[in-house]
């Protein structure tokens, strides 16, 4: 890889051990993907829940944080993905002091490196949305696909170590989605059934993701007749990234790189696949569960926007959730503060639900929470979550927000 003088100095250790490690790590990755050089990035976003980190990962971060201050501080604005613990509620959720202690140690390490504890996977709705053409090093696949597709920014999926390396150096290897040649559509889909609810949009993302099926495919979608908003794109993108590891999609007439079909592909040579109503029916049917007792209803993955919080409060007003069912709502600290100030949190929690701040359900020791609380049958409106949570021992079901709330009240899946 070609390095400029500053990059070479960082690799030589002249700017401290953290930046030497960062350059070495990124060069291994860059060589793997045939990157010719590095590109400057303006923001970094790191996923590092302690379930993923484990003791080994926390110790690694603490070693970084123990370096001299002028060596350990990140060089560009760097923010965090949801954490695994809400310190106000962890005992009620069945999480342990050991988990909370790992969390505190991680936060201490991040703060000593100058990382901002935003604790969110909806930073594009709440913190600082990137602009078109901005090169980034973002973690959380839902964040990356939204920023690439909806905002026209340039980011690969960055796992925690690579995000940290980018934050420490202000650089990332120039490969995959940092190159215009890799942003053209390779798969073409025509949607003949219009999604209505957020779970429908998530289902559409899941269908496309499962069909396209690789980080190296770029789907382009036609046939959407309505104007999707940010929450619709959020659920579709998060599910597409989850089911297919897809980092970028185009929606003709909506996303910035696809004002027309011809702008992202050669329309004459790219075959069209149809996504019809039956595909949606089949997608929801995969998860089943109607009539089953529901143990826990989860609104999370991605964290809820203020508008989703308001919609949920409207549905819960005047109702109590069933005594044998739990209802959890995860949102970002920014949205949580607004929701509290506006009385939305109070309305949601009056039903017996619990609002969790700065965490996300699947990043929070979901297996241990399930075992501690006897949760097995999980209901959600997040297509992303149903794709993930089966491996943690849950039986997930996907439904609309309205039906999720009705089920939480009834204690069974309606």
């Amino acid at each position, binding site marked *: 890889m070609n390095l400029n003088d500053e990059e070479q100095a960082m690799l030589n250790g002249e700017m401290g051990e953290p930046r030497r490690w960062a350059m070495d790590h990124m060069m291994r*990755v860059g060589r793997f993907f045939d990157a010719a050089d590095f590109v400057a990035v303006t923001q970094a976003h790191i996923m590092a829940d302690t379930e993923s980190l*484990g003791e*080994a990962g926390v110790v690694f971060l603490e070693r970084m944080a123990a370096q001299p201050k002028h060596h350990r501080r990140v060089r560009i604005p760097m923010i965090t993905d949801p954490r695994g613990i809400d310190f106000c509620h962890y005992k009620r959720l069945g999480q342990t002091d050991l988990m909370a202690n790992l969390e505190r140690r991680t936060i201490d390490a991040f703060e000593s490196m100058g990382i901002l504890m935003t604790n969110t996977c909806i930073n594009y709705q709440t913190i600082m949305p990137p602009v078109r053409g901005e090169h980034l090093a973002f973690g959380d696949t839902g964040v990356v696909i939204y920023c690439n597709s909806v905002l026209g920014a340039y980011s690969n999926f960055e796992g*925690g170590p690579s995000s940290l390396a980018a934050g420490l150096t202000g650089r990332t290897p120039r490969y*995959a989605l940092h190159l215009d040649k890799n942003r053209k559509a390779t798969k073409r889909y025509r949607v003949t059934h219009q999604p209505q609810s957020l779970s429908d949009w998530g289902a559409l993302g899941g269908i496309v993701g499962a069909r396209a099926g690789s980080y190296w495919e770029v789907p382009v979608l036609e046939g959407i007749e309505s104007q999707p908003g940010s929450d619709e794109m959020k659920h579709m993108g998060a599910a597409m990234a989850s089911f297919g590891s897809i980092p970028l999609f185009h929606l003709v007439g909506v996303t910035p790189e696809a004002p027309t079909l011809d702008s992202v592909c050669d329309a004459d040579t790219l075959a069209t696949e149809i996504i019809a109503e039956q595909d949606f029916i089949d997608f929801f049917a995969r998860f089943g569960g109607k009539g089953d007792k529901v143990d826990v209803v989860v609104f999370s993955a991605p964290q809820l926007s203020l508008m989703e919080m308001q919609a949920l409060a409207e549905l819960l007003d005047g109702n109590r959730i069933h005594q044998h069912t739990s209802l959890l709502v995860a949102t970002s600290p920014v949205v949580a503060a607004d929701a509290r100030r506006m009385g939305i949190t109070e309305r949601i929690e009056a039903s017996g639900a619990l609002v969790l701040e700065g965490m996300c359900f699947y990043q929070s020791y979901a297996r241990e929470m399930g075992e501690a609380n006897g949760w097995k049958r999980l209901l959600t409106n997040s297509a992303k979550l149903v794709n993930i949570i089966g491996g943690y021992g849950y039986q997930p079901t996907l439904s609309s927000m309205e039906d999720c709330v009705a089920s939480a009240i009834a204690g069974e899946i309606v």
Partner: protein
Amino acid sequence: MKKFKLRCHVGVGPEVSGEALVADDNFSARYDLDRIKGIFSRPQHQLAGESYVDKILVVNTAKGGVASAWMLHEMVSRNVAPRAILFNNVNPILAQGGAFADMALCDRFEAGDVTRLIQTGDRVNVNPALGLVTVERD
């Protein structure tokens, strides 16, 4: 005994040898594994219930989230990890995870679908620096 060599793109991690565990399926450390027990836990996965510990895991591609980049490191720290993972095409997360954990990881095989070229039970040597995989089969 049959012995053959497979060329792939230069990978990351050290040279290792072990027994192959193969699935025409995809991989995520978060979605698919019980990392405490060292088994595939997702019921729909082709390898559900199988131990991946010390195996040369051979799968199609990587799925989903970014967590695997930390998780491979955590798995290696407890010696409850595959020795190597071979993919047809990997996403950046698993490549980054392999680099961070110093786990052998390769993809892009010249001879085609690696999940068909290698069979469960084959003895496999993986040399990421050379982009070379050697397979022995009884």
